[in-house]
């Protein structure tokens, strides 16, 4: 490995109104390495990548960025692409209704007199797709594929741009374990072919597995860089640097106090929103008891989200069949409004398009589900609204200069905390959370687990969809395993293992 630096960041400081997101950050990326970056939500990781890749143009920050030893003056992402940088954002940026190969060459295809030769591009795309190991035909429309495959398309796109340095901002946040493994293997392979990679992740195991060096960030500063080849780096060392204190357990202690079944779903089937005969969920039955935390595991596309959204006031699918019982009585939820009124809460996995209202502030996003409760005669009581928002800002430790900050300006993990706050404020009796800790740092995860445990201890019932098996095993009292639209089985707290769950899913 050569020791020459492909990228050097010197004394970079970046401020947003009211926030110093980066505070005199310096670090280097060596050519050919995989460089892991860890840090709490809002530590400044995405902002730093924005500075490096021209998302934040020159002049909007202080300090210097050197690429191949030369000072960079990026005015836009295009400028950074020209010298071989590519960034894959926390949120995917593919055009959903275009095909794989169209997406790959969008914006940087070679043209003859402004005319595209699609056939030629189609041919070219095959080579790159093979390199990333994607076997789907290049004509496939990307929105029809899972998130994992879409990410492979993004990487193929980066490769087709002759990228030298690839920045991956939480690429595995919405992947399950198997897909994550594949992605990490791919990154290692590309490294052997000479690609340099920056990997941001809250999954420390992954970072430890693939990274040559690891930089930890905290409160906008780079705290320390480890060399994985010369030092013996461990999870707990990283965590200590990230949060500034020791953390012993990943999951809080709890003593389950489980009562009678509260909510039961029988023979529930959901039909695809477009293909009306296709069943997305097939004959699912489950129940949850008072004070219980239920886990729902299974690979992407198993139908877990679809099942829950369909129950939650017909929010998914063209139609559904089956019956639901609350406290033993049959119940119908005509709309999400109805479901919330009857005591069910749902937190979507897709916070940007189904959870938040990005152009509104933190306070409004938190109160949106509970306005009738926070108002008198239809007039919102600001005092109570502010109190409620401040309460959750403190108890979930939402990092924001004030509750009047627009949600779009928060870091990904802090946005997730806002969505959770909104549902918690509505005080649901049955709380359905879909990937509640996606993109959340270890410290905040622990806080969220504690909140879920507290709710359970108060006698609420929690249904948690999660793709992280350790999380399900650490938190859930019972785990339902789903695959291909069917519930494959259920495991009790004691008997659940990662292998057991995977085995059941494939049975």
């Amino acid at each position, binding site marked *: 490995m050569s020791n020459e630096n492909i990228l050097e960041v010197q004394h970079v400081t970046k401020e947003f*109104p*009211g926030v110093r997101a980066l505070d005199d950050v310096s670090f280097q990326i060596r050519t050919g390495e995989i460089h892991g970056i860890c840090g709490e939500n809002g530590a400044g990781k995405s902002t730093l990548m924005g500075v490096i890749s021209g998302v934040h143009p020159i002049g909007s920050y202080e300090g210097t960025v050197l690429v191949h030893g030369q000072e960079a003056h990026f005015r836009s992402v295009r400028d950074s692409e020209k010298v071989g940088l590519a960034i894959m954002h926390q949120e995917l940026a593919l055009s959903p209704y275009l095909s794989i190969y169209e997406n790959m060459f969008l914006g940087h295809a070679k043209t003859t007199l402004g005319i595209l030769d699609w056939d030629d591009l189609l041919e070219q795309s095959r080579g790159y797709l093979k390199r990333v190991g994607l076997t789907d035909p290049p004509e496939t429309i990307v929105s029809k594929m899972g998130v994992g495959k879409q990410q492979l398309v993004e990487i193929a796109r980066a490769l087709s741009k002759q990228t030298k340095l690839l920045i991956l901002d939480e690429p595995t946040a919405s992947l399950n374990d198997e897909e994550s493994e594949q992605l990490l293997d791919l990154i290692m392979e590309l490294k052997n072919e000479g690609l340099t990679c920056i990997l941001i992740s809250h999954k420390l195991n992954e970072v430890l597995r693939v990274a040559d060096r690891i930089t930890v960030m905290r409160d906008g500063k780079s705290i320390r860089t480890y060399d994985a080849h010369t030092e013996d780096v461990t999870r707990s060392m990283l965590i200590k640097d990230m949060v500034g204190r020791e953390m012993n357990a990943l999951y809080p202690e709890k003593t389950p106090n489980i009562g009678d079944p509260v909510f039961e779903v029988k023979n529930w089937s959901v039909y695809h929103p477009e293909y009306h005969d296709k069943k997305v969920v097939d004959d699912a039955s489950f129940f949850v008891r008072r004070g219980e935390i239920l886990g729902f595991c299974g690979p992407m596309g198993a139908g877990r989200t679809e099942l829950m959204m369909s129950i939650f006031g017909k929010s998914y699918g063209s139609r559904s069949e089956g019956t639901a019982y609350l406290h033993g009585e049959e119940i119908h939820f005509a709309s999400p409004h109805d479901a919330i*009124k009857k005591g069910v809460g749902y937190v979507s996995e897709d916070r940007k398009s*189904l959870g938040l209202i990005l152009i*509104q502030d933190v306070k*409004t996003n938190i109160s949106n*589900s509970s306005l009738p409760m926070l108002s008198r005669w239809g007039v*919102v009581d600001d005092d109570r609204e*502010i109190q409620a928002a401040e309460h959750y800002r403190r108890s979930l430790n939402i990092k924001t200069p004030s509750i009047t900050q627009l949600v779009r300006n928060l870091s990904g993990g802090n946005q997730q905390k806002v969505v959770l706050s*909104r549902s918690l404020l509505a005080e649901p009796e049955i709380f359905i959370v879909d990937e509640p800790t996606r993109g959340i740092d270890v410290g905040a995860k622990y806080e969220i687990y504690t909140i879920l445990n507290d709710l359970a201890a108060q006698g609420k019932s929690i249904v948690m969809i999660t793709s992280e098996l350790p999380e399900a095993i650490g938190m859930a009292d019972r785990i339902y395993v789903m695959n291909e639209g069917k519930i494959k089985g259920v495991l009790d707290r004691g008997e659940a293992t990662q292998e057991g769950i995977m085995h059941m899913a494939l049975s």
Partner: protein
Amino acid sequence: MADNSLTSNTMSFGQLLKKNVRSYSMFIMLTLIFVVFAVLTGGINFSPRNVSNIFMQNSYILILASGMVLVIIIGNIDLSVGSIAAFTGAIAAMVYNTGIGLIPTIIVTMMVGAVIGVWQGFWIAFMGVPSFIVTLSGMLLFRGLTYVITNVSPISLRDEGFSKITSGFLNSEALMAGDVSLLPWVVGAVLAVILVGMSIQAREKRRRKGFVIAPVSALILRNVFVVALIAILSWKFANFRGVPIVGVVLAIVVTILTFVTNRTVFGRYVYAVGGNKRSAKLSGINTELVEFFVFVVMGSLAGLAGLVFAGYMNSALPQAGQLFELDAIASVFIGGASMSGGIGTVIGAIVGGLVMGVINNGMSLMNIGADWQYVVKSLVLLLAVFYDIYTRRKAGLA
């Protein structure tokens, strides 16, 4: 987290300016345009009679704009308001001619407008037909129905009482000092005290809660501006017959709608639905009902506008209201609303409407024809919206 926030509790003047650049620049633009025309017309546009006139000539557009802003915040559009205004104007004339009096006529007309809103809102909110289509159809439908009920000829009014709603003045014999009416001064003074008091109280409340507040100088500057505006209007109205009734009507509409959008649950829902409809729905907001009610409100305001316009013309014309929808929509966008929904204010729409109104009025005073008025208005619309997009992009809100 403390070490990564730089906020002290008082915003600097610069920060304040940056944050509100859009709403300030709107007022500045209006003032500037007014001054330019004052120079060009040798001060005629500033005469008491003309100031009253500006309100009367634009009242119906301003009423439409304050409803249209809600429609646009929820990401929809209403092309039918001009035709509805014609239809309801005719209804108003017919109802008034039965002799039941002005107030009952207003109530009936607004109810007819609301029913029309129910019709259109039903198709848009519950049947899922795009508002562009439903209101385009409404535009044709109500134009047709207007022709049917009027036999394509104007309906004249039984007496002068009706036109008072637009061209009448509030006045009191007791408060006359020679030719000058003191009533506007009294009303203005009360209004000024209320507004200044409210702004001080609001700031005090924010301070107590530890929110970021504007510096005292900004508070004073703002209130000076408000008081000056009220004083100028009082002075002008006092010298020309008193407070125009239509100004009072407008003030009531704007006050109610501003209150509804800022303070009520319904208003919050309107912004939520406009900001992200799917998120709003999953948060438990009955998005269909919100959309439906917005169109009902728009319908009843279109009814009021139709009545006011009939009052202005002193008869109900079958061709009334043509292109009103475009003026109302333009006002809303000049007033800072966003095409993609979720952003906009009632006050903004009013200022936007006044910008266009002042231009029209000034050019008419200069004897420039409608042809050039269109050209100038088109440029104002384009530049205002461009400026809006530009400042928003700079503030990272694009």
